[in-house]
């Protein structure tokens, strides 16, 4: 037997492979990273970048697991049965799905992608993506805990978020579903719920997944999400160490600019919607309630982290339109709420 052949044989044996991987990790991990000295600004940027990744990973993993469960248990037929064809009813229904699938914005993209693969219309998935980070149990509790002393803040957040998510879903449905998505790597979009023949259906053998096919799907999804969230982390890290918040906040000298500034801040800080209410609370003394509301609605829908994740599934044109629609909706809604004195 040649030497080369012996090497190949080693790779064929999975237990040797496992041992090799373990040895690799044991060699790499004990690096004394604390001895590494970096310039302060670079270190701060990398700390924020690492924070984004470390904080997002459990939620991405949860989203991937829920996505796998949907793949396993929710067939296109079930979706067709429970989601009405009538858009006037179906979009609001999808907008409330976050109550049953409580994942934040890091975890809901894998869920939305799987729902599209199982037959949900991409425009409905957009409604889900926008509403689920706001209309879910954790966010409701944290918003209530932080803003119990501003009557109506919770309902304004839920109401405005829901209205924007459903409206934008309707707009994209009207523009046409089949131009919205790209690169859904595991399986193409189903035509089941849409009835649109230009959308390819899922091969049934890929839809009926068990055991290792399911694990492979989960790991594929995890790798894709992790590689994408890195881009959001890099942007958040760079922006946070280069753009002083005091400069941004100094621009807020009127109700209108205060709302715009808080939306800009939401984009920059890219917080998880589960806790952003506590962050917003620190601005309560200096900013109007309507501008805090703008922060609480815009942030969960659009920020650097979410945009990076969305880019894996939606075309650049859709991302631009999505950002503009959400920004307009939040701005108009917050202005209206401010001048009508609801908050």
């Amino acid at each position, binding site marked *: 037997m040649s030497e080369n*052949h012996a090497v190949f044989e080693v790779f064929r044996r999975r237990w040797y492979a496992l041992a090799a991987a373990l040895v690799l990790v044991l060699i790499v991990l004990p690096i004394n*990273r604390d001895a590494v000295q970096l310039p302060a600004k670079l270190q701060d940027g990398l*700390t924020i970048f690492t924070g984004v990744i470390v904080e997002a990973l*459990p*939620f991405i993993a949860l989203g991937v697991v829920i996505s796998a469960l949907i793949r396993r248990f929710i067939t296109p037929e079930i979706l067709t049965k429970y989601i009405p064809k009538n858009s006037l009813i179906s979009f609001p229904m999808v907008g409330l799905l976050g109550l049953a699938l409580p994942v934040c914005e890091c975890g809901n993209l894998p869920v939305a992608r799987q729902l599209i693969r199982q037959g949900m219309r991409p425009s409905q998935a957009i409604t889900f993506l926008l509403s689920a980070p706001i209309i879910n149990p954790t966010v409701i509790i944290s918003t209530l805990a932080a803003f119990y002393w501003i009557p109506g803040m919770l309902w304004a957040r839920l109401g405005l978020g829901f209205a924007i998510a459903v409206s934008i879903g309707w707009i994209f449905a009207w523009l046409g579903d089949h131009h919205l998505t790209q690169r859904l790597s595991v399986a193409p979009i189903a035509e089941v719920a849409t009835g649109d023949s230009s959308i390819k259906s899922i091969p049934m053998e890929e839809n009926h997944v068990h055991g290792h096919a399911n694990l*492979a799907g989960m790991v594929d999804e995890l790798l894709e999400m992790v590689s994408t969230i890195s881009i959001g982390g890099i942007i958040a890290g760079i922006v946070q160490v280069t753009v002083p918040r005091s400069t941004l906040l100094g621009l807020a000298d009127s109700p209108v600019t205060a709302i715009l500034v808080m939306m800009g801040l939401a984009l920059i800080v890219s917080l998880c919607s589960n*806790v952003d209410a506590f962050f917003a609370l*620190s601005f309560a003394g200096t900013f109007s309630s309507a501008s805090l509301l703008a922060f609480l609605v815009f942030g969960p829908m659009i920020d650097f982290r979410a945009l990076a994740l969305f880019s894996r599934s939606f075309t650049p044109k859709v991302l631009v339109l999505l950002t503009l629609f959400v920004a307009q909706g939040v701005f108009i809604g917050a202005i209206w709420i401010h001048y009508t004195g609801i908050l």
Partner: protein
Amino acid sequence: MSTKTHRTLTQWLKEPHNQIRIKSLVIAGLLLALGGYLFELYIRGQLLQYVHPVIQPLVLTAAVAMIIASVIWIIIRPDHIHATWTQIAAVGALIGVLIIVPARPLSVGILQQRSVGDTVPIISRSTTIRGSTENFTVLDWVVTWESDLGQRRYAGAPARVIGFINRRDGEVFLTRFLITCCVVDAQPVQMRVSPVDPNDSVQNIPADGVWVEARGTVQDRDGKPVLQAVTIRQIDEPNPAYVY
């Protein structure tokens, strides 16, 4: 000798099932490394440099899940892998960066990016305020001073406060960063400190960014707590460096 044994490594690599085998092995290694990295952060007590203690169990669970998934992955060796080499390389690069980035708290230099005034979230912070005032953190003092009752009750109380030094508008502050969820949302919480001895100038206080333990009593000045420090002693950076 058979043809099979004369294959070169290049030929072996060109065979599709071998490529899947290698890709599978690399993916298992990445999962193991990512899970191992998170687990190692926890073991070293460095996870709290990045996330709030409430998030820590979730990260730990994800780490264990990834390690288990990597082992299962190798055992069952899936033959349908959709991840591209580009994605694999991106995740590999990410892990490489994570592994070499020192787990250090945000520096004093980022204060000007983060500083938004003296306000801090009031809610849910009072739970930590109990026992001796010498155990109060900067956050505890600032939150206590938000209420008239707190000011009346604790004015003149002894204090032992840890923070890093920074100067603003001719005054010296003890500062900690407050984390609500993760380091991304870190906000400075500050408390003025002044030497109790009038002959001891603020110039003698250590430089900005130096961690100190200040002892003295806390007094009110314009509705804000001020630590009248008897001693200011340089200390090592605490772990975790944040307040939550």
